[in-house]
């Protein structure tokens, strides 16, 4: 994968318009012949980040494998909204078993394909953050440890949105959920808890671990393609804003996802065999407040009784990420004249 700087003058978004690129450099999504692995007509909410993430990731995987993908799905929003009785949105072979076993079911699919001599068919297992960091954690760790030939994708919307917005071990501190109420001296979710799954995945020494957001389509697709170039266990963690659970405007999903990265709260990087190999630098360093204020789950930090102390605490978390992954360019934040890189 090479990176080529693209110069253009689109303010604010950092997105590379496909019309500025040659055909070969354009995204899978811009291709009219994309597979639409998950097709329209599903019942996701307006502005659903997970529906976007799944479509981006699976269509890219389909292109990378020449349309030979089997998907295993954990219980959750993606499963529910994609298969409303009596319909299905899936144009790929798709299996849903349970909430906590998608990695192990995928192991079984991969084993059967190996026995059948179908190494050309690749397996993707997917779940929300609950199915990944909480109830599916044991089976995921087992799949990693055995190095089964599965790409596991976590669509992280930072909570149990399907059941009505409850806390998961991926819910950020201070966030309001239905089980981390905005009451008491420490409103919202507790600080000092939660699991950092990408780093846990790296500790298993799997071939490839990457994070991405739905705000950077080129980056996400490139990571899926890269992931499909390896055999063995791989992990892709995609941040997917949830307008319902986060209390963000449905037309702000991409913006919110971008700010998660630009604040440093969600580090975007990739790692091979446990070692970080690249990071997506922050283009315009943004205070966490800008990100938080777009989401009602953090509204209690601002309003009538603001909690600047908690905002500071969250800023410190972002700062630690920036330091840990080296997220700042030497030449940070040159606003207006945007420059971006596209991976081709």
């Amino acid at each position, binding site marked *: 994968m090479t990176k080529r700087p693209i110069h253009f003058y689109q303010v604010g978004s950092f997105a590379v318009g496909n019309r500025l690129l040659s055909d070969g450099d354009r995204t899978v999504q811009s291709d009219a012949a994309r597979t639409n692995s998950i097709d329209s007509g599903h019942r996701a909410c307006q502005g659903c980040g997970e529906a976007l993430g799944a479509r981006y990731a699976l269509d890219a995987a389909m292109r990378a494998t020449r349309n030979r993908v089997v998907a295993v799905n954990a219980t959750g929003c993606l499963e529910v909204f994609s298969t409303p009785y009596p319909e299905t949105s899936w144009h*790929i072979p798709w299996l849903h078993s349970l909430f906590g*076993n998608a990695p*192990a079911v995928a192991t079984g699919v991969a084993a059967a394909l190996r026995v059948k001599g179908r190494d050309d068919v690749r397996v993707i297992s997917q779940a929300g953050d609950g199915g990944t960091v909480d109830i599916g954690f044991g089976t995921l760790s087992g799949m990693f440890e055995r190095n089964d030939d599965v790409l596991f994708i976590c669509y992280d919307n930072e909570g149990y949105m399907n059941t009505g917005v409850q806390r998961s071990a991926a819910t950020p501190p201070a966030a309001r959920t239905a089980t981390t109420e905005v009451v008491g001296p420490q409103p919202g979710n507790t600080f000092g808890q939660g699991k950092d799954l990408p780093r846990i995945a790296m500790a298993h020494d799997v071939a490839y671990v990457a994070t991405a957001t739905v705000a950077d389509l080129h980056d996400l697709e490139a990571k899926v393609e890269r992931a499909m170039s390896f055999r063995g266990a791989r992990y892709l963690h995609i941040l997917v804003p949830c307008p319902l659970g986060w209390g963000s405007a449905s037309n702000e999903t991409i913006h919110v996802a971008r700010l998660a990265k630009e604040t440093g709260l969600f580090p975007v990087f990739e790692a091979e065999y446990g070692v970080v190999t690249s990071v997506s630098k922050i283009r315009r360093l943004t205070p966490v407040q800008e990100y938080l204020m777009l989401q009602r789950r953090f509204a209690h930090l601002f309003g009538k009784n603001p909690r600047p102390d908690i905002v500071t605490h969250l800023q410190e978390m972002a700062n630690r990420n920036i330091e840990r992954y080296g997220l700042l360019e030497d030449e940070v934040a040159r606003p207006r004249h945007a420059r971006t890189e596209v991976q081709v």
Partner: protein
Amino acid sequence: MLEQIEGSRAVAETVALCRPEVVCAYPISPQTHIIEAVGAMVKEGRLSPCEFINVESEFAAMSVAIGASATGARSYTATASQGLLFMIEAVYNAAGLGLPIVMTLANRAIGAPINIWNDHSDAMAVRDSGWVQLFAETNQEAADLHVQAFRLAEELSVPVMVCMDGFILTHAVEGVDLLEQSTVDSFLPPYDPRQVLDVQNPVSIGAMVGPEAFEEVRYLAHLRQLEALERIPSIADAFEDLTGRRSGGLIHSYRTEDATTIVVAMGSVLGTIKDAVDIRREAGEAIGVVGITSFRPFPSAAVRAALEHAEQVVVLEKAFSIGHGGILATDVAMALRGTDCEIHEVVAGLGGRPITRQSLEGLFYRVGRGELDSLLFLDLDADVVNREVERMRASRHSGPSAENVLRDLGEPRVGQVS
């Protein structure tokens, strides 16, 4: 070829003859010898192509089997007791998805208190899951049932559990006639799945089903079990034609023709019961035995036909529904609705408590004299129970019962030689 081998080895060798393509396992006593042996055969290359996967839990074991079976591979696993309970969500799921997985259940008690020995509590915990449950009486039958199980499972697209008593069968060394590969191959055609994950013909499996169709889907699962009631005897017949051996089927009757008392049971205890029945027969008692091989589907019509002429039916089972009584007895009572049979529920052999011929003889003697309660716990030590009941009455803080009972049993008593 007749061999003197351990029950687990006989099962492992027979499973291997069935050419499983994916075997996944997590160790739990008393199932371990089975999966160790299959694992070694895969590693040696005797079973090729076959993937043997060491998983991190029983929940993963059944989940791997689900994924493999849905991808068209013949899938096998084995478990027991706590392991079955740990995978129970996936056990139901496999049946709901209609995946023909075969699993050996090395029957073992369920804790607490933790206990590794045999009873049937584990199998009873999943009796409503949609799996076919076949109970083996001997190691020969345990081995043979696996061949029949794969055929039944794949014909009907239902998962089948072969239940064999932990330790009593799994660890017992006795003569078993192992089948030839060519015999098994002629009996068991390659797995031709009804549904499969295929990139050429993509389907969605495991979609959400609401009130519009859920009852129909469940009823179809019931219909498949009813069909199994037809297929189980005919598969056993076909097996007998091929091997000359009578294994499987719905029920086995022994000396029931003129019996006024019939004992009903499942699993290895049937051998001891037959011995006791022979002795009671010599004493002039008209007593016989019906062994249930197919517990799910429950062969109500066959059970009724075998029992309805009896005056007394004794259902002896190695499990019970706490707060209610016999589980098998309840099913037998339902099968005998409208008849005059008197039904006695006997709970025996819990947590590996030996069921001796002497105990059974005494039991049958009391049945003959009309002295039996409707629910009896065989060889229950009433003194131990009463002393713990008194301790609990005497103090709110009497502590854990299991440990109290153990301490009680360990203490010397007046009149006891220490």
